[in-house]
């Protein structure tokens, strides 16, 4: 609807609204016309604030414009939303409503975002189903044109935005019928034009602003009528009838629940069940929320209503109640105050919260709300859906209560692994069933929070009736488990209904299957009389050259067992879908799929239970061990890891969102099918494997031989070759249950057997053959003490690889190109590291529950990590730095004051410490230990200095030098956070910025950023990005006092290490731009280091370090890569992001490739020239901190920064 009814669409990606923009961009790239026969102009902006600004401008010009957003994105639009509404500019913003980040970020659905903009003056229209989202989108576009008031059309993120559902589509004629073309003409005439000039956006004074604000009131009074009229026209054309407010239920109901959004489905089902039981209940579904339709609400309520419960999907802490509750109460109050009160007695109104962040909202919960309304004293501010054992606000609900399923409906659940194609196959099955049977279908897909080895659960319903159940399946007729390994992780049969069919992909021979099942599964199979069918889909797929893509095999088996379609027809349809999906790419993949489909049924076998083999014991094969974990990890994190977070009560949660570090190690996801095995004989001790491992799953330790005293038999080791350190041994060890099997370590391993070149020092081997031995070895390996950090220089690969990583086992994509950099900074500076992390991939694998890879060393020190937002990360990091410096200043002042008491030599040593290198940092840390001992002596009550001593004790650690890093992706650094980043670089402060540059918005699914190179295809650049990549480093270099480096660890690991160390050491701002290979590049991730090499060899990504210098003849820029030796085309053609354009638009591809070659040549020429440029750091001799001893606040050398106001002494 939005595409068809718009001329201009401004975009910015944010989950879960991104797919709306992506579809628009795809259609525009394909030349699909809108209702008016034109292809809308799609423009991606640098942020939602930018998208709203562009929207505003397009509207002022008198064009039809729209955008899509959610959550923080919507909040960034607020200032423009006030303007647009204030100027009566007709527009629609479609919102996939999502939680606003508070104590934590959440990408899931609730109304906290839309409720935050209800004062902007936009009309607000709510859709509760997928069909409604289409229909009311049209109503919104129609009504905004007629009313001139902008509309915010919203529906629940994921539950509605991502639900697959049969809908009846609207045609262009329907749209044309509702859209008032005269209103469009008037809009155009009102648009800015020098042919009839006027001025807008004036500034007004107290004399008239208020009046002006009131002048628009009549427009708002018209809205309910206009929306109702559009709804009526829609009903005339389609038979689908909507109201501003809809009532469902008993005409004589005494209890009514009011709500809006997808939760309506569950309430409606509950109303039907309760009515069937003779209860007088009903519900009000609100569509128009602003302007609030008070009159329609009152009219819709049965006159018999006694009690009303209003449900809000948002929380307004400190408010009297949530917004909808307050509106309903006020509307009733006003109605009862009127001349003819609608009710004999005012109904009793209560309100409560449900469903925050897509929390399940089921008929059982809805029933709890109705039940409580029937109680003698209904709860006033309750929550339903969680166990609130803190404020005791929750309603208890009966999880067994369900709405009866319609006759002929099938509910199916599919447990899959992310990469196996399960979700895609299920979407495809739903379509086949819908097309083949005319049945209504519903598909909803649940993912875990990992980007590699993640579990997906597909919930599919097929039935003769429209499906209103907006909650997960709890009584499945059919369950499929697409990966045998999942049986150990989750109870896949928990939601199987008695007598259900269970399809298992099992790699074991049929006669072994039963004994291979975990005991709880066998028990459930017997107790629920579940029919077990197995197929070795892995084998069949492999034989058909399909690799791990088992989807088509499982799909065929599903159709054979579910009998939802005649199996022959289903197979023919699956083949048809295969041809449709892959046919355009050629015949081979089609042939492979067809072969897999044809052999699937022959492999499907029924397995009968062997009851004797069922024991009561729970012999789960889990390798997880929480014995050394903190209480929180044992009692909370472990529950999250077991995927049972739903069971945790409110009291289990930290109220301020702080979680312990170092928890990823407890997950033991065991997702690799092959792991690297070390051959010490060949190893050259280079450390490249450990440096490059994205998951810190391959480790290098150097240790004295005595450490092997208790080693398990045949624990591998070799003599460590080093000039600096003799008599030590070396072991390279894989963490078998944490490795993702990405193969990067093997790819970079340079040590080959003299007799068999393909045998390296590291080789991928099947995990099943090695996991037992390697687990034992890994357990022992962890007990080997870390090497004293001072024994090896850190500026070599070998020296850095030995350092303990304090970033381990992240859930990033296997082979992630970003995480090696983060691991490296954790190795180099981890025990004094503070990180501000922009939202994006790095904040997701860095901090998405259940666990975090950020960890601590044995002393308990490690990176302190926080994510604020996407847009503000540089400023957030600067704030951390400023806060640190404030603490340092306070500590120094206190120490000066206590100098005599703690001993002047110690105080002077602390205050004068330079801490230029790690050794002196360690020495300072020792001094702080002594200081604290002496402070303890001063602390007893009654001591005159007790108070100062206590204050200094709290702040003393700040006197040890810290490294503050601001980390984020290119979407942040080049686009949404660029203004802030620029400002922070200009601040002259001692901060370090690490840009993980994947040249695309990776986390939200590959949208173009200003880091995207010319010629690359990305989301929002479906026809290939036509403009070149921004030289972000230039921003830093321009200031003259910013250290800037461009690195690529796979191309030059030593240069990367050097750059990070120099950045840390540079006392002013530092900017390190790190080339990060990404799954969104369309490459085989196991070869990503080769791609990095080629990126550098071709001049696509030159390496350099810009080290500001005070020397008159200094040349700050050092080029660290050689002149291009291969053409850029050779590099880019190996990546789908570039090569796909050659398929879709060969001419454009050729033209852009030529320009890209020129970009690279020009960049190289320019950098070569810069490398010879003398540039002197301007220093006015004023020191960074007004300290008499002339050092930075933490004792480090002063920033030789250009003068700023802050630094100039009066």
């Amino acid at each position, binding site marked *: 609807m939005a595409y068809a009814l718009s001329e201009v669409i401004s975009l910015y990606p944010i*989950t*879960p609204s*991104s*797919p709306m923009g*992506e579809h628009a*961009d*795809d259609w525009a*790239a394909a030349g699909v016309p809108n209702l008016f026969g034109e292809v809308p102009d799609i423009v991606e902006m640098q942020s939602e604030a930018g998208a709203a600004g562009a929207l505003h401008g397009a509207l002022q010009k008198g064009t039809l414009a729209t955008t899509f957003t959610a959550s923080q994105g919507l909040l960034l639009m607020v200032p423009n939303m006030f303007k647009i509404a204030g100027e009566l500019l007709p527009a629609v913003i479609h919102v996939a409503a999502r939680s606003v980040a508070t104590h934590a970020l959440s*990408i899931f659905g609730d109304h906290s975002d839309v409720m935050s903009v209800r004062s902007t003056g936009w009309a607000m229209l709510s859709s509760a189903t997928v069909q409604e989202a289409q229909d009311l989108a049209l109503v919104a576009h129609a009504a905004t044109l007629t009313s001139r008031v902008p509309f915010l059309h919203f529906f629940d993120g*994921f539950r509605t935005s*991502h639900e697959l559902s049969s809908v009846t589509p609207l045609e262009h004629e329907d749209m044309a019928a509702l859209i008032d073309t005269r209103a469009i003409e008037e809009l155009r005439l009102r648009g800015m034009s020098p042919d009839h000039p006027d001025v807008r956006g004036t500034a007004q004074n107290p004399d008239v602003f208020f009046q002006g604000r009131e002048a628009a009131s009549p427009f708002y009074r018209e809205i309910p009528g206009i929306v109702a009229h559009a709804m009526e026209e829609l009903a005339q054309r389609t038979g689908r009838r909507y109201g501003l407010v809809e009532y469902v239920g008993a005409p004589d109901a005494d209890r009514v629940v009011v709500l809006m959004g997808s939760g309506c489905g569950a309430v409606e089902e509950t109303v039907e069940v309760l009515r069937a039981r003779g209860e007088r209940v009903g519900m009000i579904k609100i569509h128009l929320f602003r302007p609030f339709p008070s009159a329609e609400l009152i009219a819709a309520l049965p006159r018999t209503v006694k009690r009303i419960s209003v449900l809000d999907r948002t929380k307004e802490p400190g408010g009297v109640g949530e917004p909808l509750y307050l509106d309903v109460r006020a509307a009733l109050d006003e109605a009862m105050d009127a001349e003819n009160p609608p009710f004999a007695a005012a109904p009793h109104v209560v309100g409560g919260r449900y469903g925050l962040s897509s929390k399940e909202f089921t008929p059982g919960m809805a029933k709890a709300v109705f039940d409580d309304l029937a109680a003698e004293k209904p709860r006033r501010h309750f929550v339903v859906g969680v166990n609130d054992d803190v404020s005791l606000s929750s309603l208890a609900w009966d999880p067994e209560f369900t709405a009866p399923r319609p006759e002929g409906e099938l509910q199916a659940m599919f447990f899959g692994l*992310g*990469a196996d*194609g*399960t*979700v*895609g196959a299920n979407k495809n099955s739903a379509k086949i069933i819908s097309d083949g049977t005319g049945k209504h279908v519903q598909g909803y*897909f649940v*993912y875990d929070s990992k*980007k*590699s080895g*993640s579990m*997906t659960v597909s919930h599919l319903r097929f039935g003769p009736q429209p499906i209103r159940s907006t909650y997960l399946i709890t009584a499945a007729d059919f369950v499929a488990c697409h990966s045998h390994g999942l049986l150990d992780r989750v109870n896949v049969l928990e939601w199987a209904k008695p007598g259900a069919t269970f399809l298992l992909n099992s790699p074991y021979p049929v006669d072994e299957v039963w004994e291979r099942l975990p005991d709880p599964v066998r028990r459930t199979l017997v107790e629920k009389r579940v029919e077990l069918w197995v197929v070795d889909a892995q084998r069949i797929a492999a034989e058909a050259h399909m*690799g791990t*893509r088992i989807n088509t095999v499982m799909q065929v088996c599903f159709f054979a067992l579910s009998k939802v379609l005649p199996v022959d027809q289903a197979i023919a349809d699956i083949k048809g879908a295969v041809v449709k999906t*892959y046919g*355009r*790419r*050629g015949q*081979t*993949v089609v042939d492979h799929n067809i072969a897999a489909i044809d052999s699937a049924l022959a492999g499907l076998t029924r397995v009968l239970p062997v009851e004797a083999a069922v024991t009561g014991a729970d012999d789960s094969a889990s390798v997880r061990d929480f014995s050394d974990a903190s209480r929180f990890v044992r009692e909370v994190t472990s529950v999250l890891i077991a995927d049972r977070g739903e069971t945790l009560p409110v009291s289990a949660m930290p109220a301020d969102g702080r979680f312990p570090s170092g928890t990823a190690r407890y997950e033991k996801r065991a997702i690799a099918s092959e792991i690297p095995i070390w051959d010490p004989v060949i190893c050259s001790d280079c450390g490249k494997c450990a440096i490059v491992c994205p998951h810190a799953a391959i480790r290098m330790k150097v240790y004295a031989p005595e450490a092997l005293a208790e080693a398990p038999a045949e624990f591998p080791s070799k003599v460590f070759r080093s000039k600096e350190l003799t008599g030590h041994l070396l072991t390279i060890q894989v963490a078998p249950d944490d490795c993702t099997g990405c193969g990067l370590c093997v790819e970079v391993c*340079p040590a*080959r057997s003299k007799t068999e*070149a393909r045998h390296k020092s590291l080789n991928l081997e099947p995990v099943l053959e090695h996991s037992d031995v390697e687990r034992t070895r890994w357990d022992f390996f962890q007990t080997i003490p870390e090497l004293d950090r001072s024994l090896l220089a850190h500026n070599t690969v070998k020296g850095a690889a030995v350092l303990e990583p304090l970033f381990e086992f992240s859930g990033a*994509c296997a082979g992630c190109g970003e995480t090696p950099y983060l691991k490296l900074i954790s190795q180099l500076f981890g025990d004094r590291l503070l990180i501000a992390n922009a939202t994006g991939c790095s904040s*997701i694998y860095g901090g998405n529950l259940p666990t975090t890879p950020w960890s601590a060393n044995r002393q308990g020190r490690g990176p302190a990590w926080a994510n604020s937002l996407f847009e503000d990360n540089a400023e957030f990091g600067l704030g951390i730095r400023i806060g640190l410096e404030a603490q340092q200043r306070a500590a120094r002042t206190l120490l000066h004051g206590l100098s005599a008491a703690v001993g002047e030599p110690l105080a002077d040593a602390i205050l004068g410490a330079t801490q230029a290198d790690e050794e002196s940092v360690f020495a300072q840390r020792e001094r702080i230990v002594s200081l604290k001992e002496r402070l303890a002596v001063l602390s007893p009550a009654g001591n005159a200095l007790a108070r100062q001593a206590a204050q200094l004790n709290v702040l003393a650690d700040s006197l040890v030098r810290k490294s503050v890093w601001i980390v984020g992706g290119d979407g942040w650094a080049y686009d949404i956070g660029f203004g802030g980043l620029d400002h922070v670089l200009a601040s002259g402060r001692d901060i370090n910025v690490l840009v993980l540059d994947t040249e*695309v918005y*990776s*986390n*939200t*699914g*590959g949208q173009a950023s200003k880091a995207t190179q010319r010629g690359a*295809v*990305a*989301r929002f650049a*479906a026809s290939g990005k036509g403009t070149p990549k921004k030289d972000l480093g230039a921003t830093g270099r321009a200031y003259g006092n910013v250290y800037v480096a461009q690195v690529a660890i796979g191309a030059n690991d030593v240069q990367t290490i050097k750059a990070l160390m120099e950045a840390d050491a540079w006392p002013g701002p530092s900017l390190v731009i790190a080339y990060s290979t990404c*799954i*969104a590049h*369309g*490459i*085989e*991730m196991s070869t990503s280091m080769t791609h990095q090499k080629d990126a550098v060899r071709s001049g696509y990504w030159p390496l350099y370090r810009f080290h500001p210098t005070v020397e008159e003849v200094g040349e700050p820029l050092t080029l660290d890569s050689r002149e291009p030796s291969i053409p850029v085309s050779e590099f880019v053609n190996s990546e*789908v*992001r570039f*090569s*796909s354009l*050659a*398929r*879709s638009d*060969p001419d454009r591809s050729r033209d852009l490739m030529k320009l890209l070659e020129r970009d690279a040549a020009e960049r190289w020429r320019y950098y070569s020239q810069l490398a010879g440029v003398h540039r002197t750091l301007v220093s006015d001799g004023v020191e960074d901190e007004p300290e008499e001893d002339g050092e930075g606040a933490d004792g480090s050398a002063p920033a030789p920064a250009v003068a700023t106001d802050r630094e100039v002494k009066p």
Partner: protein
Amino acid sequence: MNPSAVDLTTSYLGLTLRSPLIASPSPLTGDVDSARRLAVAGVGALVLPSLFEEEIVAEELSLTAALEAGAGVNPEATNYFPPVEGATLADRYLANLERIKSAVDVPVIASLNATSVGAWSRYAELVARAGADAVELNVYRVAANPQFAAADIETADLELIADVCAKAKVPVAVKLSPYYSSMAHFVHQVIGAGAAGLVLFNRFYQPDIDLETMDVECRLQLSTRVELGLPLRWIAMLRPQVPDSVSLAATSGVHEGKDAAKALAVGANAVMMTSELLRLGPERVAGVETELRSWLAEHEYDSAAQLRGSVSRVTAEAGEAFERANYMATLRSWVGVGAGPGR
């Protein structure tokens, strides 16, 4: 004799070419701009780079793998690319062929690099439809499987050739490797299978080893004039054996006008060039043509046709030298360490 008056026209695969100099498959023939430059510089025809079956399959598989790698894994990103539609490698080849065909005024020959029966006859039809004037079929294989006898391989190759010749609507030249045990016998069978001409020989790029990394490396190595000997010998021997209607083209080691003259002398209808053009650019064709014309004029030939076949196994004064005898002569031509061959 005025060099510009020498008639260079030749008949190749039933096509009349203005010059026997043909640009054989290389990046130059695959790009519209350089193809146009080749035509302007005077090539008689050009052969497009080969369409490789393996490449088509590999592209399809890697594209599918890359697109599916991140799909359906994460709630925030159902996948990472806009729909990748459009032309397959083969489609793009055909489109490029059409473009080049319309950009040049000389015959355009498509090149297919075949490994299996079936798939190629389809492409042979498609390239003809896209405007190719002829097809050059590369029969390329490394016979490393000990289970197959020489005869098995020849049979398979002939099946493939017959299949393509039957389906192609245009003449087919077969580009052979020099490694058949009985070349003359096999050539006759190739002709029997329907080939309108032979291109002798396929120059194999041999893999190299990088001694630093111990990786196997495939690098393009340009030909040298020394390599001309092999096609010269075989064309000289085959020319009298095969009917006049069957075209023979020499390829490998043609760098100068004199090289072309030699190829014509042994009986080649056409002379293919790549390395020299890659090194010096498309315009080098004009230089080679001038050299050829000058040589012909200096030696008072009216036309290339006059020279063609004048020094074959049958027509040469000591034609037997093309056979085994020349082996002995070559050995005896060595005059001493450091002196090089005695010529």
